[in-house]
C-alpha cells in the first residue's frame, strides 16, 4: 500500500510555473540571451518614452484635431452629412445581424467599427462642424449594432438574405452618396467634393468588387484549352503584374481620355477606380488560379463521368470549391489594395493621404507639422489593416483552409 501512496505523490502534477520560472526560461536562459534582454529593455524604454514625450508634449496636433470631418469625408457638403450617417447606420445594422448569424470574427470587426465611430463621437477637440447631434448619431451606432444583433436571431433573416443585403448595401450607399436626379432630397453631390477615408474606402472596395469577376474570367481563360484565349489572358496578367500601380494610374488618368472618343468624359475618381480595377484584376486572377489549382482533378473527372457539361463542371463543381480556398488571399489582396489607394493621390484623387497633404498646405503654420499629420494617417491605416488581417487569419482557421 505504501507503494501506492508513493506513486500518487510522484504522479502529482508539477507546480504551475511561476512568473520567475517563465522569465528565466524565456528571457535569461543563457548569458547571451540575458544581455539581449537587457539591451532590448533599454531600447524599448528609450523608444517608448521618446514617443510618449513627443506625442504629449512636443507634437502640435492642431492640423489633425481641427478637421476630423475633412479626413473622413473631404469636402462633402456639411448639410448632407445625414446621408453618410444613414450609410453608417445601415452597415451597423448589417454587421450586427451578420455577427449573430455567422461567426465571432464579425463581432470583432463590428466592435472595431463601433469603436472607430465612438472615437469620432468623442473627438478630443471642439470642432464647430462636428455638432452635438452628429456626435450623438455616431455614438448611437453602438446601439444599432446591438439592435442588429438581436434582429439577427430572428429566423426571417437567413444567411442568403443577409448576403443579398450586403450586396445591395453597396449599391444603396453609392446612390445615397451620389444622389439621384429623381429625388429632391437626394440632390447630386459631385465626386470632386468627396474625399478622405470615404474615397479611400470607395477605391479599395470598388476595385476589389469590380476586379473579382474579371479576375475569375482571366483565371479561367488562362487555363483554357484554346491557345489564343490562353495567350491573351496570360499576356494581360503578366503585363499588369510587371508594372507598378502608379504607372497604371497615370495611364488611366492621362491616356485613357485619349483612348476614348472625345465626347466621352470620365470623372477623375472613376478613372482612378478603373485603373485600380484593371490592376487588381490581374492579381485576383492569380489568386483564383491558385484556388482552381487546389481543387483535385478527380472532381472534374467525377463530374464528367456523371455527364455534366464543361460549363456545369466549372460553375457548379470546381468554382465553389476553388472560391472557398481563395477567400484568405483575396482578403490579403484587399488589404494591400487598401494601402495602395494612397498612390491615387499622385493623380489628384482626394483620398486620405492627399487630404492630409492639403491640410498641411492650408496654413503656413502647418508646414512643419508633417510628422503629426502623416503619423495620424499611418495610425488610421494601421488600425484598419491590422483588423482586416486579423479577421482574415480567423477566417482562415474557421474555414479550415490548408488543414486537409
Amino acid at each position: 500500500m505504501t507503494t501506492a501512496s508513493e506513486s500518487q505523490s510522484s504522479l502529482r502534477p508539477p507546480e504551475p510555473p511561476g512568473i520567475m520560472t517563465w522569465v528565466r526560461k524565456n528571457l535569461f536562459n543563457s548569458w547571451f540571451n540575458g544581455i539581449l534582454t537587457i539591451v532590448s529593455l533599454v531600447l524599448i524604454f528609450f523608444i517608448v518614452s521618446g514617443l510618449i514625450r513627443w506625442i504629449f508634449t512636443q507634437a502640435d496636433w492642431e492640423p489633425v484635431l481641427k478637421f476630423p470631418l475633412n479626413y473622413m469625408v473631404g469636402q462633402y457638403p456639411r448639410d448632407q452629412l445625414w446621408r453618410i450617417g444613414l450609410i453608417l447606420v445601415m452597415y451597423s445594422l448589417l454587421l450586427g445581424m451578420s455577427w449573430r448569424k455567422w461567426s465571432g470574427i464579425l463581432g470583432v470587426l463590428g466592435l472595431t467599427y463601433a469603436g472607430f465611430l465612438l472615437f469620432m463621437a468623442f473627438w478630443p477637440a471642439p470642432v464647430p462642424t462636428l455638432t452635438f447631434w452628429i456626435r450623438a448619431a455616431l455614438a448611437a451606432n453602438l446601439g444599432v449594432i446591438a439592435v442588429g444583433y438581436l434582429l439577427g436571431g430572428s429566423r426571417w433573416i437567413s444567411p442568403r438574405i443577409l448576403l443579398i443585403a450586403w450586396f445591395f448595401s453597396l449599391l444603396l450607399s453609392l446612390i445615397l452618396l451620389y444622389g439621384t436626379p429623381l429625388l429632391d432630397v437626394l440632390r447630386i453631390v459631385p465626386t470632386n467634393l468627396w474625399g478622405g477615408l470615404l474615397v479611400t474606402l470607395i477605391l479599395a472596395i470598388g476595385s476589389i468588387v469590380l476586379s473579382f469577376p474579371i479576375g475569375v474570367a482571366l483565371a479561367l481563360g488562362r487555363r483554357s484549352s484554346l491557345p489564343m484565349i490562353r495567350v491573351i489572358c496570360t499576356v494581360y496578367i503578366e503585363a499588369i503584374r510587371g508594372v507598378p500601380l502608379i504607372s497604371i494610374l497615370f495611364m488611366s488618368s492621362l491616356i485613357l481620355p485619349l483612348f476614348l472618343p472625345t465626347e466621352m468624359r470620365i470623372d477623375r475618381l472613376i478613372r482612378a477606380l478603373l485603373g485600380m480595377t484593371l490592376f487588381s484584376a490581374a492579381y485576383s486572377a492569380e489568386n483564383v488560379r491558385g484556388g482552381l489549382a487546389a481543387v483535385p482533378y478527380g472532381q472534374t473527372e467525377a463530374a464528367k463521368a456523371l455527364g455534366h457539361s464543361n460549363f456545369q463542371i466549372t460553375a457548379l463543381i470546381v468554382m465553389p470549391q476553388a472560391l472557398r480556398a481563395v477567400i484568405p488571399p483575396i482578403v490579403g489582396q484587399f488589404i494591400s489594395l487598401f494601402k495602395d489607394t494612397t498612390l491615387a493621390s499622385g493623380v489628384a484623387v482626394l483620398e486620405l493621404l492627399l487630404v492630409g497633404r492639403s491640410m498641411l498646405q492650408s496654413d503656413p503654420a502647418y508646414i512643419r507639422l508633417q510628422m503629426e499629420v502623416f503619423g495620424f494617417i499611418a495610425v488610421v491605416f494601421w488600425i484598419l489593416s491590422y483588423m482586416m488581417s486579423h479577421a482574415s487569419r480567423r477566417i482562415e482557421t474557421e474555414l479550415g483552409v490548408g488543414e486537409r
Partner: protein
Amino acid sequence: MRLISLILRPNFAPEKSTTNAIQFQSQVPFWRDERVLRIAAQVISAIVVIGLLYWGIINVINAAEQRGLSLGFGFLQESAGFPIGESDLPYDPSRSFLYAFLVGVLNTLKVAIVGVFFATILGTFGVIARLSSNWLVSRIALVYIEFHRNIPLLVLLLIWFNVFITGLPSVEQSIVLPGPIYLNQRGLQLTWPRLTPHGTPFVITVILAIVLAILAWVYLRRIQERTGRSTYFAFISLGILILLPIIGFLLSSGEPLRADVPVLSGFNFIGGYDLSPEFAALLVGLVTYTAAFIAEVVRAGIQAVDRGQLEAARSVGLSYSQLLSLVIIPQALRVIIPPLISQYLNLTKNSSLAIFIGYPGIFFIGKTTINQAGRAVQVIVLIMAVYLSISLLTSLILNIYNRRIQLVER
C-alpha cells in the same frame, strides 16, 4: 453556350478522342463540330481584342490630331532642358530626352539594387530575431513586422523623407560615422574608393579572380559530386579570390585605389560620393518596408521544413552549422525563393514611389518630360516598357536559379 463550354475546358483536360469526331463527321453539322468551334472561338476572341485595340488607337490618333500632338518618338532626340538633381552619368540640360531618360533608369536601378541588397540583410536579421528563443527579442521583431505590413509604403516614405529633411543637423554640424561618412540635411557624403591612374591592372585581376573563382567552384564541385573525392573547391576558389588581386595590387605599384574623402568647404562638402536626402529616404523606406515582408517569407520557409528532418539530422550527429547549411537551408530555400523573387520585384516596382519625394528615377524624369514636352502617351509607354523589361528579366534570371534549386528535390 457551347463556345463558353469550350473556353472553360481546362488546358490539362484530356482531349476528346479525335477518332470520334472523324467517325461522325458526316452526321455532325459544322456549327456543332468541335474542331470548327474551337477555331471559331479563338478567331472571335482575337477579333474582339484586336478590334478593341484598333478602336482605342484610332481614338488616340484622332485625339492627337485634334489637339495637335505628335505621336512619334522623334522628340527623344531633342534637348531635354531640365536639370536632374543627381546622376551617375555626366548630365546637363542640353542633353537629349533619351539621355535624361537613361539617367532616370540608372537612378531607379541604383536604388533597386542597393535596396534589394540591404533589404535581404535586414530581413535576415529580422528572421533571426523573430525565431529567437528570447521572448522579448521575438516580440520586438513581431512588432517591427506588423508595423510595416499594415502601413502604406507611401506614408512611411513621406515620414522618412521628413525625418531626413528636418530631423538631421545642418551641414556644419554633420553627424560623423566611421568611414568617414557625413550625415546631414543634404544627405549622406560617403568616402568612396576611386581608381588611381595606374589602377587598371588591379581592376583586371579582380574581375579575372571573380570569374576564375566561380569557374573553379562549379567545375571542382562537379568533380567532387561525381567521384566523391574531396577536391577542396571552397579553399581553391577562395585562394584564387585572394591571391590574384594581391598580384594586381603589386602590379599597380601598390596604390590601385585612393580614398576620396568628403571635405567640408564653405557650406558644402566636396569630394566623396554624395547621396541626396531623397535617395537616402527612399532607400531607407524601401529597405525597412521590404525587410519586414522578407522576414515573413523566410520565416514561413524555415518553419515549413519538417521537424523530423531536424531531429533526424541531430540524431546522426550533425553539428549545428552542418544542420543549418546541409539540412534546413537547402530545404527552406525551395519554399523561400519564389515569394522572395516577388518581394524583390515588389521593391523594384515600389521604387516608382520616388516620384512622391522627388528622387529622379524613371517616373520623375517621365513626368518632367510630360510637363515639358507633352507626349504623355509615348512617355508612359516608355516607362511601362522599362518596368516590364526589368520585371521580366529579373523574374527570368531568378526563375532559372529557382528551377536549379527545385531540381534537387527527390
